């Protein structure tokens, strides 16, 4: 029997992530600073990783002869794709070249290969988390700590983004219009109910919106988001799916209450879509376990006639029942917010919490 899967909607939870600092890393933050995932925490020394290039093999020559074909010597710098060594064409023998796989400096030359140290690049340890810096100890580590709300979407496209949350709709089923977006939305995560017009996405890009949290988009024209053939101009998390339905009331209500708060949107794929919102710190609460399925559980209908209905489970476990289309499947009774009782296939539910 398929038990309805959980769809995380967490009002508040405590998040702490600890990061180690190398002894020679130079911290760029101090305790109580607020950081976003892309914020640099510390400057790091250049990596010592060396890339070994099998020159003799690439030129098809005996190892002892490698030296005479080398065009770069110890200490010289090379660009990626530059010729490191060359063997000219000979009788029934084509010319052969060996290219540098990375930019860097020739660190060593052995009998049959050359070691390249990649060019030092300015590297920094990024926060890769959102929250307040705590417990910074130079040369040892720090923690990033926060009180957050978390909601899980059904689809994420376009990677991650962060910024302040900006709720531009009054209701979850309201259409987000391009005209609602202006310069004040730059760098923010905009929340909208339903997008029916492509122009909204263009306007979001034009205004410099960092990301979008949307209830739904139309099916036609947006299939590329599912197949990987198209990406929106800014990262998008869909909370409900495809169609004109918009955003369910539970999710919209949570987002509306957090208007203006720092938000981290993670939009990676089907089932890998999350929105984390930093809350004004209150008492710390650990991440609650996923909700249990049973009478009284908060649920949402995610397919079929009652798609979008939120409520609670009135009966559990489900009992097999014939649907109007003739299929016999396990069915439960749910009570919506207005007290109406509906019978729904258990497979078409998600447990919220």
């Amino acid at each position: 029997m398929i038990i309805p899967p959980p769809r995380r909607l967490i009002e508040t939870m405590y998040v702490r992530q600890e990061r180690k600092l190398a002894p020679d890393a130079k911290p760029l933050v101090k305790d109580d600073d607020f950081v976003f995932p892309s914020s640099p925490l510390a400057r790091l020394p250049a990596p010592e990783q060396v890339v070994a290039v099998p020159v003799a093999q690439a030129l098809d020559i005996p190892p002892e002869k490698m030296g005479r074909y080398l065009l770069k010597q110890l200490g010289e710098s090379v660009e990626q794709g530059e010729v490191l060594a060359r063997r000219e064409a000979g009788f029934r023998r084509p010319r052969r070249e060996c290219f540098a796989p990375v930019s860097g400096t020739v660190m060593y030359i052995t009998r049959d290969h050359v070691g390249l140290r990649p060019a030092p690049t300015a590297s920094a340890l990024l926060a890769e988390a959102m929250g307040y810096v705590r417990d910074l100890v130079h040369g040892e580590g720090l923690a990033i700590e926060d009180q957050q709300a978390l909601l899980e979407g059904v689809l994420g496209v376009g990677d991650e983004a962060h910024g302040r949350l900006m709720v531009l709709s009054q209701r979850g089923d309201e259409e987000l219009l391009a005209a609602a977006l202006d310069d004040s939305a730059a760098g923010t995560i905009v929340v909208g109910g339903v997008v029916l017009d492509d122009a909204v996405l263009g306007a979001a890009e034009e205004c410099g919106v960092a990301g979008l949290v949307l209830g739904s988009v139309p099916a036609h024209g947006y299939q590329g988001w599912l197949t990987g053939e198209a990406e929106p101009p800014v990262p998008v998390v869909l909370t409900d799916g495809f169609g004109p339905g918009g955003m369910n009331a539970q999710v919209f209500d949570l987002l509306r209450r957090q208007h203006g708060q720092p938000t981290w949107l993670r939009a990676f794929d089907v089932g890998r879509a999350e929105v984390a919102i930093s809350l004004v710190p209150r008492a710390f609460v650990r991440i609650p376990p996923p909700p249990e399925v049973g009478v009284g559980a908060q649920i949402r209908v995610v397919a079929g006639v009652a798609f979008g209905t939120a409520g609670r489970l009135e009966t559990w476990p489900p009992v097999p029942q014939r649907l109007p289309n003739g299929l016999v499947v396990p069915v439960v009774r749910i009570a919506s917010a207005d007290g109406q009782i509906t019978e729904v296939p258990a497979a078409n539910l998600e447990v919220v919490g």
Partner: protein
Amino acid sequence: MPQDSAPILAIDCGGATTKAALFDRIRGHYRLLGNGLALTSRGDVSLGVRAAIGDIERLRFRRLLAADGRLIMPPRPDGSGVSAFLLTCSAAPPLRLAVAGTGSTASRRDAHRASQSIHAEIVDVLGLGDVQDQQATSARIRRLSKLSPDAILMVADRRASDTSELVELSKMIAAANPDLINGGRPPVIFAEGDSGAGRSVAEVMEKLVDLRLVERVAPGESQATDTPAAQDELTDVYLERLADVLPGYETLLPPEGSVGVVPTVAALRLAAQFLAGHYQARTVLVDLGSDTTACVGVDGSQIKSRIKLNFGQGVGAARALATVGLPALTRWLPFTADTDALEQYLYNKTLRPVTVPEGHHARLLELALGRELLARIVPPVEWFHQPGLIVASGGLFAHLTHPSEALGVLLDGLAPAGVTRVRFDPLSLLPQVGALARWRASVASEVVERGALPILGTVIAPVGHLPTLGTPALIARIFPEDDGPERVVQVKAGEIGVVPWPREEIALLEVSLAPGLNLPGMKKAKTIPLRVEGGVVGLVFDLRGRPNPLPPTPDRLAAWVGALGV
């Protein structure tokens, strides 16, 4: 608990759901005792597996899991526990494979065929042309490094005698070994065939890459069937990867227990081979999965399979729609479809693949998608279209209002010609049957003989030029094998005729066909004698034309659906 009880638990972890099945000996024969279903749990498959096992425990009042969550093995005197545990799995992402070959495209085709034996996606194809220009070689090396495949499969050209091409290709692969750049170390599997290039290739590669030399692409291609083939090595690589990305199944086993995991695709091949032998018939097995559609055909010693990833009824529905197009689906719908609503339904199904259709239109849309997936998965090989036995599995066949719906989908999608028995798999047991067949074929035989794969019926579908539509094309006189009244059925060109005939009862037929029609594999005669088996639907005479059936129109669709009693 019966005295000779020796329960076997078989689990299949699919892309969307995990299925558990418990088999045990009842009155001396193995049969299905109970089955369970749960969502496949990402990250730790054991959660989904335990939930599916929990279904069986509740259904059969039998304890299978100990208090610590591990399987009770061996069984205890109180009836709890199992004596064997089999696991098939397709829940891991597909193996990202680069294939390389020299000379003609035959070697690359061989490599492609080998990749069809597991859950694999080909991310790059390398040929000798790539190593003849140094600039291009360098670009290919960078590309291959960047793609970072999970494995590289290199196949020697069956006709090549010059090993130098293979050596050049090996050098390129060795130079691209992503170990140099990002710490990965994909194995390179080289099937040397008759090329004799094994030693030369090994000299180039063995110190630089994890080289696995094999003789041939598929098992059984040469006399030396005891040595591993490229397919076996690919299976091993897939299983190594499975253990990495889906940890947890070991936590199900008792401390000293072990289990051989079989990739679901390999299990389906095993099932097809077993069923072809068991029923002594040319067999085509189709599986409509959530993410993947698979087809395996067995004709004597030949086995061919075709797997399409991202082409399924659930997770793969959006990509499947992009491939087949909306008109291909709407032609199977007996109502004027709102195309936006259809797209919306299938895209939401991709997001939430285990939801079930509630309305008539949604259900008919899922059946239409099933027809088109089937039509596109069967290889264009003649014997695939003239099977003696079809076995159909997948979620679609588990949610039917009547088994005749399954038969309708299979007839429309596969268009089998000749005389074909059709079985289906309402409990999605085929991967487990394959695993059982590998473990102990006698157990698999007993399980299928005891109702695991119910027979829908026998289909008689002549090939050739149809007479004018609406005129008689087939007359069959039907006699029960035991005593009973004779029945006569006449079917017109363009129509389907159904004669209910119970399961496990044999019918003797005398079939007369209109001029221009014949039954493949049967002698042309005025009347063709047949001995066929009934089924849940019965005997079905499909006179819609073969090999190219009539296209559906609203009127025809209504008539065909009506004839099948859907």
